[in-house]
């Protein structure tokens, strides 16, 4: 790679191509000047409000001389600077005008600018993708999914521990109640309790409705009937 950092002669394939291009360029220049060929090729109608195209297309005559002089001066300058074997004068100018030389040699730092821009874009791209995968997708989307999962588990826990156990407990209670009732009925206690209830109800009726005499007799009758039944029911035991 080192050889590319120093001035060197072009390889022959490049020289041949340049030579061909030089001949073609010279020939084209000569050809385009014949019979106003170039003028006809690049002739455009003038836009409204502007000077006619053929007037605007002609450069002033002195410009040709200035350009020619500039070309010869450039050739002379190039010979002065790089004509010998050591480029003392060129090196001296390079040292004295180092900032300008660097600016020109690095092509106004445009490459560095674009590389920095690419680097910056890469960083922005990495940041955008990180946000997309770690924040938007993982946090919001997958996070939402996890939240739903947690909620689902909570619902399951509630369903399993509270609702289902309540149902089971109700069932269990029913079974226990049934068992108790069965035990009571089998022991004949239920009739006894019912009769006691009837007796109590009779007494209460008696106490709460004293004014209605006709109820009194009925209540007392009911009470007596209850006590009598109780005694009869209890007898087999």
């Amino acid at each position, binding site marked *: 790679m080192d050889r590319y950092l120093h001035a060197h002669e072009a390889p022959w394939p490049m020289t041949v191509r340049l030579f061909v291009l030089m001949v073609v360029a010279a020939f084209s220049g000569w050809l385009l000047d014949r019979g106003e060929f170039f003028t006809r090729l690049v002739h455009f109608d003038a836009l409204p409000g502007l000077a006619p195209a053929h007037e605007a297309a002609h450069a002033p005559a002195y410009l040709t001389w200035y350009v020619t002089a500039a070309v010869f001066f450039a050739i002379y300058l190039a010979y002065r600077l790089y004509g010998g074997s050591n480029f003392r004068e060129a090196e001296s100018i390079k040292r004295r005008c180092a900032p300008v030389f660097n600016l020109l040699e690095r092509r106004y730092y445009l490459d560095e600018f674009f590389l920095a821009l690419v680097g910056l874009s890469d960083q922005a*791209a990495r940041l*955008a*993708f990180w946000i*997309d995968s770690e924040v938007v997708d993982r946090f919001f989307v997958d996070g939402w999914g996890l939240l739903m999962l947690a909620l689902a588990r909570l619902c399951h826990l509630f369903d399993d521990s509270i609702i289902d156990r309540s149902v089971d407990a109700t069932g269990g209670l029913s079974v226990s109640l049934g068992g108790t009732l069965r035990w009571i009925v089998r022991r004949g206690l239920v009739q006894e309790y019912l009769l006691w209830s009837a007796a109590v109800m009779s007494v209460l009726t008696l106490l709460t409705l004293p004014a209605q005499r006709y109820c009194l007799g009925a209540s007392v009758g009911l009470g007596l009937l209850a006590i009598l039944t109780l005694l009869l029911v209890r007898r087999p035991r």
Partner: protein
Amino acid sequence: MNILSLITFLPLAGALLVLGLPKESKRAVQVVALLSSGLTLVLSAGLYFLFDRHTSGMQFVERVPWIPSIGVQYFLGVDGLSYPLVLLTALISFVSLVASLNIVKRVKEYFFWFLILEVGMLGVFVSLDLVLFYVFWEITLVPMYFLIGIWGGPKKEYAAIKFFLYTLTGSVFMLLGILAVYFKSDPHTFDLLVLLQAHPDWSARFQILIFLAFYLGFAVKVPAFPFHTWLPLAHVEAPTAVSVVLAAVLLKMGVYGIMRVSYGMLPLGFQWFLPFLVIIAVINIVYGALCAMAQTDMKKMVAYSSINHMGYCLLGIAGLTVTGFSGAMLQMINHGLITGMLFILVGVIYDRAHTRDINAFGGLAAKVPFYAGLMSLACFASLGLPGLAGFVSELLCFLGAFARWKVYTAVSVIGILTTAAFFLRMIEKVFLGPLNPKWDKLTDLDAREVCALLPLVVLTILLGVYPKPALDLMNATVVHMASLFK
């Protein structure tokens, strides 16, 4: 049977035939699938010559009562908005089936689900009854779930569930919106054409709420930021042909829904949402492109570039101009063609190299020049190089949006630059430089792959050089749509 019913249900007939074939007859299954899809494509293409380009009204209309008690109809029709998408769906489905001929696992089921998917996609674009639209919309979910979940990559189950849940969540909101407009309309109807005329009686508050419900359904499908994260995963895990259909057609259903349902039916809601829509469009464009740039997996890169490209559609719509709408619609078609091509090409290299890592390659242009040429063409078309299809539609989107949204449009240009950067870098890393000796035995495209790619390549160049035929198809509808907001 009317032509639209024939186009929509021919793949279903093919699917039923496939179902009746023994699973060992793989060749017969492939032939039946290709024939039914090919015939659908021929009929769809035939409509091109019968389609009246001078009217914005619905054409080839079919209307039969379906559930009369609640006013549901079997109501089909196409206009300049839906017909190009029908054509695209038929073409992409056929191309994808050609690209699927190398499937060896559970061939019968694969082709069956693929044809069902085609029915769903076509149905969405031709339905003019909201219930029918919703039914077809949901029909697409089931085949996609199985196609990703069975024939996908290593994380296929996760990708399939994520895709399904994401889309279904959006669909539920859409269903709410459909029910709301049904009960709000007087007399109650699901007829889209009637509902498009009913909005003057609806309050702004109602329209905004229902717009949001519909938008959630469509935004997931587009996919619009921040409902896009299912897409890269689904693409990466899906088999090649499914990725092609997913990017080329299914995403268009979202944009189509916004243009067909939300825009015309809920103009006040649309107007209220417009500033948000343009911001979402810009985020899609810039953020999608940046995310694509960060990828080293080619398929994931193309997937993220789809998010970026769908942003152009949203930007075009937000412009509310004839140019913007034309751009959005043409972008749907062009993106379908170009991304279809890109996914097939990524699939080609994955089939041979079993990797999609950009950094794993190098110098492939010398080994597979035809492949390199087509991939470069697809990349150039995708980044919007003049002369190729992508440029025309992107330009129209920008032109259409610029009058109303100057700053946002200017910011969106960053997306174009970034797109160019990541595609050119991919070309450089994969095709240029010295050939990585690991890929010394890599072979170029075979006949099946060329057959699948050829129509997409031709159309990409054709629409890039001469987009007039496609724009003419849409023009009358677009002019009518733009006039609604004047």
